[in-house]
């Protein structure tokens, strides 16, 4: 299993770039210095997938402002991505790179490849500017992911990156309390954090 806190494996594959309609190589390490959300999904022209990709597309401007780039990835080809983008109302708003992994090489590298179906499951990876994996979420294909929770997690990771002496407690959101982990509060975390705070 890919481990959080470790460097993610690099990859290079074809991608469709909706902003100019081009097809080009995409290399993960080109994104060093930026936060990256790498988002695997099973297949173009299916059912839950367009709802998820649309949700990411609607959140994309907010993510860009946070210094986050998005790369979607499925085992479809770039040609499929292009036509999906051109023809599906839910996919037309997509501006981020749509990676193509028809051999399953990248999906296997990230351990989200389903050998039986030949597709990737819903794996989402939050990668920090140093290429370190910070969070993974993998869902069975019949349930979509929650972009609000994705944004919350990135905000929390960005906060603790800027404030390395702090930790973000459960459900933390910007403006809410963080605290410094210290042996003095072991067993007494309630003294510095209350569920309602």
């Amino acid at each position, binding site marked *: 299993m890919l481990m959080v806190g470790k460097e993610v494996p690099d990859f290079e594959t*074809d991608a469709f770039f909706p902003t100019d309609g*081009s*097809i*080009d*190589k*995409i*290399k993960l390490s*080109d*994104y060093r*210095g*930026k936060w990256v959300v790498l988002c695997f999904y099973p297949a173009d022209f299916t059912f839950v997938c367009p709802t998820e990709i649309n949700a990411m597309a609607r959140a994309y401007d907010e993510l860009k402002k946070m210094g986050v*780039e998005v790369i979607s990835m499925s085992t479809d080809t770039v040609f499929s991505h292009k036509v999906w983008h051109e023809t599906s109302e839910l996919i037309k708003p997509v501006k981020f790179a749509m990676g193509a992994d028809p051999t399953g090489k990248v999906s296997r590298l990230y351990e989200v490849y389903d050998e039986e179906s030949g597709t990737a499951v819903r794996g989402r990876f939050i990668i920090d500017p140093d290429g370190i994996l910070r969070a993974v979420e993998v869902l069975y294909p019949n349930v979509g992911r929650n972009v609000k929770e994705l944004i919350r997690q990135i905000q929390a990771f960005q906060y603790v990156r800027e404030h390395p002496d702090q930790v973000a407690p459960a459900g933390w959101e910007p403006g809410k309390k963080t605290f410094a982990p210290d042996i003095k509060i072991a067993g007494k975390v309630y003294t510095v954090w209350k569920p309602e705070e």
Partner: protein
Amino acid sequence: MPCLKPNKNLSEQAKSILKLLAEVGKATKQEIADKSGLNTPLIARKLRELIGKGAVKEQDGVFIITDSGKEVAEKLK
């Protein structure tokens, strides 16, 4: 890539990076980003395109226009 004829032409962004390199001779990815306003992942892609076409070479993170790159840049004027 199946059934796709390789594109021999440079993309518009690659052309603009090549023109910039023709002016300054060599630059890092970040310097190109600062001067061009393009984002660094895009610049990295386009530099690979230029390297693949022999117009640019890399040395320790610095991208240098080659003689053939200079010729192409001259034609782009």
